[in-house]
């Protein structure tokens, strides 16, 4: 599968400040989350991919095109929703979106049709003839999303899409991103410092810190892997030692915890039903069973530890 974004020793320097340092990564997922604290280089990475900042050393490719030499081709295939306020206050939403579609190369008639569609899709259908200057912050965010998808891009880059939104508006934005992901017609890069946004929408996560990639994880794979971690609370008159021995004989690893707790890593061929069966055989009560996994917050906090050199 062709990578959506490929970074080879990418470095970017703005003035005297080295913002991105020797980044090597390749992303193929449908939704890629870009995480990092403020000043980590997320927005600079996005701007570089769009050709706004020159590459100091290394190279980057987006959808197979070289960022340094083929930025116009990249921009034709990419939709971008910037973080900051970006609109033209005197224009109606439909004219604005239509103009953006035409600038992306759509003929005027199709641009107008798709502008209406995009505004309905993001939920601004009823407000599409209002001028953008009269929109609330949430509506402006949705209008920015509409302009990013109006021309049917292959890759959409969303820079802090839920910034400043109230909880219902945030939920609506997340739902839209998920719908776009599930429609399967585009790749999405979601840049945020809100872990929940990324966790709810992304398959792959890249964590940046001080211009370097400090962690990459495929959340889908981790979710599958983490289902193998089980925490049990045991009670009853039965012999818990026998229970542990029987479980280990199935290929599980175990570690006893406090208060009758037992942590298990299930073997490849072990099912949860096997544990129930052994518990019944050994007359042990299972009071609690948790599937324990690292949350994105834990992953992020580990990545942000001062002595972290890029490994978690």
């Amino acid at each position, binding site marked *: 599968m062709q990578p959506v974004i490929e970074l080879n020793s990418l470095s970017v320097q*703005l*003035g005297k400040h080295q913002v991105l340092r020797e980044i090597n990564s390749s992303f193929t997922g449908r939704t890629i989350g870009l995480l990092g604290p403020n000043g980590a280089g997320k927005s600079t990475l996005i*701007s570089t991919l*769009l050709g*706004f*900042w020159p590459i100091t050393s290394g190279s980057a490719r987006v959808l197979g095109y070289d960022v340094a030499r083929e930025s*116009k*081709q990249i*921009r*034709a295939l*990419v939709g*971008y929703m*910037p973080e*900051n*306020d*970006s*609109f*033209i*206050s*005197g224009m109606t939403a439909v*004219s604005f979106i239509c*103009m*953006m579609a*035409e*600038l*992306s*190369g*759509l*003929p005027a008639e*199709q641009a107008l049709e*798709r502008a*209406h*569609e995009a505004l*309905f*899709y993001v*939920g601004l*259908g009823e407000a599409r003839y209002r001028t953008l200057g009269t929109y609330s912050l949430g509506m402006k965010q949705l209008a*920015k999303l509409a*302009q990013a*998808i109006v*021309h*049917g891009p292959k890759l959409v880059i969303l820079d802090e899409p839920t910034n400043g939104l109230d909880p219902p508006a945030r939920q609506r934005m997340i739902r839209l991103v998920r*719908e*776009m992901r599930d*429609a399967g*017609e*585009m790749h999405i890069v979601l840049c945020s410092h809100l872990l929940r946004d990324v966790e709810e929408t992304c398959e792959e996560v890249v964590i940046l810190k001080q211009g370097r990639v400090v962690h990459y994880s495929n959340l889908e794979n981790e979710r599958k892997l983490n289902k193998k971690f089980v925490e049990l609370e045991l009670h009853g008159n039965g012999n818990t030692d026998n229970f542990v021995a029987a479980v280990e004989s199935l290929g599980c690893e175990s570690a006893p915890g406090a208060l009758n707790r037992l942590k298990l890593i299930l073997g490849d061929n072990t099912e949860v039903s096997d544990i129930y069966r052994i518990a019944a055989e050994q007359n042990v009560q299972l009071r609690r069973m948790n599937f324990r996994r690292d949350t994105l917050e834990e992953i992020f906090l580990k990545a942000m530890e001062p002595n972290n050199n890029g490994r978690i």
Partner: protein
Amino acid sequence: MAVYKRTYRGYAGGLTPDWSRFLVMFRYSRRNLFRSKLMNGFFLLCFFFPLLCLLGIYANDHLAALLPSQLGQAKLLKVDGHFFLIFLVVQCFLAFILTVFIGPGLVSPDLANGALTLYLCRPLSRLEYVVGKLSVLAIVLSCATWIPGLILFFVQSSLSGWDWMIKNSWIASGIFLGSWIWILSISLLALALSAWVKWRIAAGGLMLGVLFMGGGFAAAINSVLQTQQGHLLDVSFLISAIWQDLLHDSGERPLPLAEAWFGVFAFAAACFYLLMKKIKANEVVR
């Protein structure tokens, strides 16, 4: 697809040619121009003087029919380079006022609202953006300057005959070239100032300041230093020196023509440089 179907779908249709994208900028910018009644009124006012000239040229050629025989032999006007120089001075002044109205509104709202990022993240270069915005001014100002100028020239040619037209073809090229020098210079000035000031009223005021205070500075430098080089700061003076040459006018020329051309070129280049410094998708926040 009907608009009520709220599902996302990609686009698989045809695209417009790359080179034509700047025309989109032109089309959308032009739409907003004539919304103000004041602007419409002033635009119409720009055609008053050409109409007066047209009547003058017509009356000049038909005096014999309009007046008794002896008086009719005389000419009311001498339609020559000087006549068209006056036309150019009046129309270019009106064009400047028109630019004060229109120019700042083209770029400053985009910069003030951060819309440049949205333009430039599409297959549109910075230069295409500037050309798109500049073309709005170029077309509107052309309607007030060289287009009526050439109409007057061709009317005079049709009345005076083919020989007059061939003999005075330099007037046509002078009107055309002289107008374009003015149009490009003041358009670049308007866009550059509005890009830096980002407030259209202030940018308009600053335009007036640059033009009139430039003259004031030039006069001050000339009188203090006992020189004529101060005129290099007065772009309107420099351009009128070029017009004088293009339209073969025999007025006083305190500066050599090459210096006038150099001054205008340097002025336009400086405006273009300042403009391009601001036309960026991102601004570095230090």
